[in-house]
């Protein structure tokens, strides 16, 4: 019987100075790299495939399969290969990669080296959002230490394998978490998504074969190499293997990071987190960030894996569980997310650029109590004109909170109209509400 929580990635976060190379190596760090360098590249890809690891950045695409799309290097395909780690953690509610890189950056660096070797890349990048200064310091230092110890650079561990790793700070743009926008940004351009095909595995960074993986995906690789694919695949559910970090935020007593096998339920997680805050009930939640449709208390027992959350009409996403109780106005929450999408739309595709602007106009009117019931249908119609009509999923994500909130909370929208505005007191939802603090 597997334990309820299974710390692997988070297991060292309470160790003494776990961000240092000395600490990481004292707990077996970089031994997986030795083992990997004794394997062929294809063997590593097979191990990751057999483990069932799926991308932890939201989409859940099988990691080993993604790696296998990289074409073999030969006379027809002479271009260099690249590994790019997506450390642009920006999806509202998502807060797992930042603490991982802060506490144990070497876990990521070791994963980068093994993964780069597997895809025959000699150059890798960690694209980290710029707004997390101390995380960037820890990454820079970890990479420096790894070079000095011979884990990076020329002839790593005497294997003949060379790898250069650059920590690259972004400059504030949610869209750069989208993998092709990230590539444009890393090429020194505005971060705007590319049309696919060609996919990055064929023409990614500098039009060369490129793998882009999330931090948590890459950080999971050393433990898979160390303990074997069967160990990993024994955790989780049938099609959602392994352990993941679930991030609880909002109106629970103990928000934070909970590492568990895929398939735990929100009811279990809220129990672990000491319940909802006293005197209040769960109202709505996001399973994987604001781009995943809202769920409600009726979904408390949905196993949090890719299939079951999909079956409940949402998406597992990044396991960013933003939890709101009955003091929260869903219209206010959704309007704020919509303003975010409007602000972050890169402007390339008309349905997203114009559509998110119009969504804000209509939602603002509704929140002020000045709209009409037909505005709800108008919103749904606008969403229909945005969904699936742009290069990337930003516009799609913008429609998620709107369509799901109208589905579950139509009456609350109407209450704004009949009551001439928002019926909620925003002070009641704050973390310091008990102190009676007000804006």
């Amino acid at each position, binding site marked *: 019987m597997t334990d309820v929580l299974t710390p692997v990635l988070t297991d060292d976060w309470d*160790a003494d100075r776990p961000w240092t190379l000395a600490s990481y190596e004292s707990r077996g760090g970089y031994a997986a790299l030795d083992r990997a360098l004794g394997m062929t590249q294809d063997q590593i890809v097979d191990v990751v495939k057999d483990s069932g690891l799926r991308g932890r950045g939201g989409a859940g695409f099988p990691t080993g399969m993604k790696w296998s799309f990289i074409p073999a290097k030969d006379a027809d395909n002479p271009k260099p290969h690249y590994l790019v780690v997506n450390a642009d953690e920006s999806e509202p509610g998502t807060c797992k990669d930042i603490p991982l890189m802060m506490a144990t950056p070497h876990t990521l660096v070791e994963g980068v080296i093994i993964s780069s070797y597997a895809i025959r890349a000699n150059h890798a990048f960690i694209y980290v959002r710029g707004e997390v200064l101390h995380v960037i310091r820890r990454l820079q230092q970890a990479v420096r230490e790894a070079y000095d110890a011979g884990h990076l650079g020329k002839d790593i561990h005497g294997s003949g394998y060379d790898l250069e790793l650059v920590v690259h700070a972004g*400059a504030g743009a949610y869209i750069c978490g989208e993998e092709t926008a990230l590539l444009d940004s890393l090429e020194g351009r505005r971060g705007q998504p590319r049309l696919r095909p060609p996919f990055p595995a064929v023409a990614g960074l500098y039009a060369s074969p490129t793998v882009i993986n999330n931090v948590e995906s890459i950080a999971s690789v050393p433990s898979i190499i160390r303990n074997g*694919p069967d160990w990993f695949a*024994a955790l989780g559910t049938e099609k959602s293997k392994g352990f993941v970090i679930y991030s609880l935020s909002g109106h629970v007593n*103990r928000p934070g990071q909970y590492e568990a096998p895929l398939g735990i339920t929100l009811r279990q997680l809220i129990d672990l987190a000491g319940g909802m805050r006293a005197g209040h009930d769960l109202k709505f939640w996001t399973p994987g960030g604001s781009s995943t449709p809202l769920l409600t208390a009726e979904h408390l027992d949905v196993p949090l894996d890719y299939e079951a959350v999909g079956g409940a009409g949402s998406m597992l996403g990044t396991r960013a569980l933003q939890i709101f109780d009955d003091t929260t106005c869903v219209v206010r929450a959704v309007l704020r997310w919509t303003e975010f999408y409007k602000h972050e739309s890169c402007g390339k595709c008309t349905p997203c650029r114009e559509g998110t602007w119009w969504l804000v106009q209509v939602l603002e009117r509704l929140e002020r109590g000045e709209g009409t019931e037909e505005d709800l249908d108008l919103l749904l119609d606008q969403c229909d004109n945005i969904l699936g009509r742009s290069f990337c999923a930003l516009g799609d994500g913008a429609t998620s909170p709107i369509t799901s909130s109208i589905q579950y909370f139509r009456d609350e929208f109407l209450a704004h109209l009949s009551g001439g505005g928002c019926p909620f007191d925003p002070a009641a939802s704050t*973390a*310091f509400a008990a102190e009676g603090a007000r804006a």
Partner: protein
Amino acid sequence: MQRDKLAPETYDELREIAARYPQKRSGLLPMLHLVQSVQGRITPEGIEACAEILEISAAEVSGVATFYTMYKRRAVGDYHVGVCTNTLCAVMGGDAIFAALKEHLGVDNDETTDASGDEKAITLEHVECNAACDYAPVVMVNWEFMDNQTPESARQLVDDLRAGREVRSTRGPAICSWREAERVLAGFPDGRADEGPAAGPASLVGLEIARENNWTAPSPGGERPLEQAPVDGGAR
């Protein structure tokens, strides 16, 4: 406003950034961070310097500089204070904190206080989700975390900053200046990586519960699918 000239050493460092990459244009984002660390904002002179080194047009550099929110066309104060007002933080109190700071500092969004004498200038801005939702509501100072804020704590925070008193990030070191922070983002470490904790309390709650209950990841099972290198267990 007095503008610092770009010194030859800055040009050298800009070239050094570009040289980190297989194709030099990839250096543009960190190069613009360096321009801000030297000049306090993105200047026409800084744009020209980047364009010259990368052999692209100033318009192309401008196009990039105006796309990203961390690049500022107007001078930023000694400290950039960012209040998260994305939904989760807003609901948990970020809206109240932002309103309190606007009133307390007498500035609106994306404006800078008038600093007199020894007082430090503060630029106030509301920011989007900064990946610290388990510490909501969150305020960032020069992109360092100030977790679990209230209107009162945020007012005290900016008063301390204005007075030049030392302020420590709740999950990081003593706060440096905005220009110093931009230099780190350009890829020039400042030697402070070892300051501050490994993790804040919220990052550790699941781990603490696992420890209390003796919950661990399973040990790797009997037969090893891969050869016999010495391994530590996945769990302690």
